[in-house]
């Protein structure tokens, strides 16, 4: 990964905007921002962003690759789509944020110990297993993502909710034994694998371009 990162730095020296355009989901749109700031002001998580979207776009243009990719900002996105709805320039900001986050993670530059990164990864791993999300397992793995002791503490804190969910049959403890899933799990996993390969190849080829 870091090898890929070095190659990318080499290839796109001075032109992070181009790198984003080539390799980040919906990255081509970054150039269209006119710095009005409506996205930054519209974000419900606004106060927690070190750099709000519009500033990230400016940082991309100003070639601040490290700062952008190691930022925890993109991980604050709640996918509420306020920014997209209000952007006067049609930028799919939510997707660009997801794209930047994914790209940072892929290159190993994303901040360590960022809870959303972990949750997001756990979610993905969970769904990769059977093609559908197993909420109980996801929940439990979430509680234990920072180690056993903290996990027990968190799970204890959440026990009332868990109990409430169970009592209303909205959480099934038996799910731990298996749960829902697609029938053709191998095919499903192959499909995702193929998609991942194609995507990785695209990025690798951009280095060679």
């Amino acid at each position, binding site marked *: 990964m870091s090898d890929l990162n070095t190659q990318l730095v080499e290839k796109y020296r001075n032109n992070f905007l181009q790198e984003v355009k080539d390799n980040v989901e919906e990255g081509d749109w970054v150039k269209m921002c006119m710095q*009005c700031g409506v996205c*930054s*002001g519209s974000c419900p998580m*606004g*106060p927690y962003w070190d750099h709000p979207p519009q*500033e990230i776009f400016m940082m991309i243009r100003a070639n601040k690759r490290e700062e952008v990719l190691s930022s925890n900002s993109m991980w604050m996105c709640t996918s509420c789509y306020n920014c997209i709805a*209000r952007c*006067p*320039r049609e930028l799919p900001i939510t997707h660009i944020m997801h794209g930047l986050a994914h790209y940072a993670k892929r290159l190993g530059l994303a901040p360590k110990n960022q809870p959303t990164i972990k949750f997001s990864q756990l979610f993905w791993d969970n769904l990769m297993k059977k093609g559908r999300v197993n909420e109980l397992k996801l929940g439990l793995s979430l509680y234990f993502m920072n180690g056993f002791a903290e996990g027990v503490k968190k799970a204890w804190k959440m026990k009332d909710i868990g109990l409430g969910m169970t009592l209303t049959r909205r959480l099934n403890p038996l799910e731990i034994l298996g749960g829902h899933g697609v029938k053709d799990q191998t095919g499903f996993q192959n499909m995702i694998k193929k998609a991942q390969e194609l995507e990785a190849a695209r990025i690798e080829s951009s280095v060679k371009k």
Partner: protein
Amino acid sequence: MSDVVATNQTILVVGGGISGMTAALEAAETGKQVILIEKRPFIGGRVTQLYKYFPKLCHPTCGMEINQRRAKANTNLTILTLAEVSDISGTEGDYTATIKMQPRYVNDNCTACGACNEAVETEFDNDFNYNMDKRKGAYLPYNNAYPQQFVLDSRIIGTDDADKAKAACKYDAIDLDMQEETLEIKAGAVIWATGWQPFDAAKIQPYGYDRIDNVITSVEFERMMDPFGPTGGKILRPSDGKEAKDIAFIQCAGSRDRNYLRHCSRICCMASLKQSTYVREKYADEGKASIYYIDIRAIDRFEDFYQKVQDDDNVTFIKSKVANIVEDKKTGNPVLNGVNTEGYHRYSNPHELVVLAVGMEPSVDKDIFPVEIVLNNNGFIEADNKNGGIFAAGCASDALDVNRAVQNATASALRAVQVVNRVARAED
């Protein structure tokens, strides 16, 4: 009215705002026969609803008075109000326009004595004041309205008020039997000067114009400043009628935005800069204006005006497209949320009143336009040879401020003159 004489050497001007009047007068004063039609009951258009012009801070009525006098003095010019074009056929040098005229229910006998107004009772929303107040069903649209004749609102026809108005008139000026009229006139060239309309602020949902009382539009703010306007020249909050002294101006309200108007409406930055001086004019040191903007577009000597406003400590500039407005339910203050992008500063600013600098939407309705004409993506008429002898003037051609509209209208007058001169030469 049906005695309008027109030939294919006549120039038809559609729209009697500042652009249409200019085009009509310039052509008429060059000796051409001109017919000017206007859909409202008076000429002058939107500028009549402005308090002051930028950058000179002079009053639109001043230039309008001169234009009216030019019109009164010129026998080459025929003005038809309450008239709209419903169809145009033919080609350059030989057009026939169908004109629909709504009844005024008042004829030329009217002396503007005002007796009918006193006699009637029912009140209607006053569109001249963007419905911020009411007017009676027999009315003079505004102080300097020309033609200086009263109008009966068609909604009083058939009611007692109509009879009262008729009875009150000593000059037989009220004709309740007037009907919609259709006339066909010839024209060699047509100047299309239908102007613009303020972008519908309710569509800009994050700003809550339809939900928050103290969010108003820039055009409404202009009416508030008129001593004879809906608030008697005071800046009053719609929610509680209190004077508003801390006022926010939001730029690009509907402009430069793919959700609304994609184009920059050009005038709004200057309009807000101008309106910030209104706040100071009314309240001196107590007046505060905050301008939320993306780029301040103050070209040429307007920049000097911008500098002057910037030098005013009571005017604050925030480089930000406001994200949304919520109402503080206790105070009625609109609270503006957003980020000042100059260095990333988050704000949540209450103001007593918010003025949306609404954009310019061209009033060229493509769907009902009677002949084929080239429009651009923003809905303005392009200068294009395919348009034949039809020429846009003023804001039908682009988002223009008054002086550029007049400049453009003067140019359009010549384009029309060229056509009718060609016709004249051919007929000689």
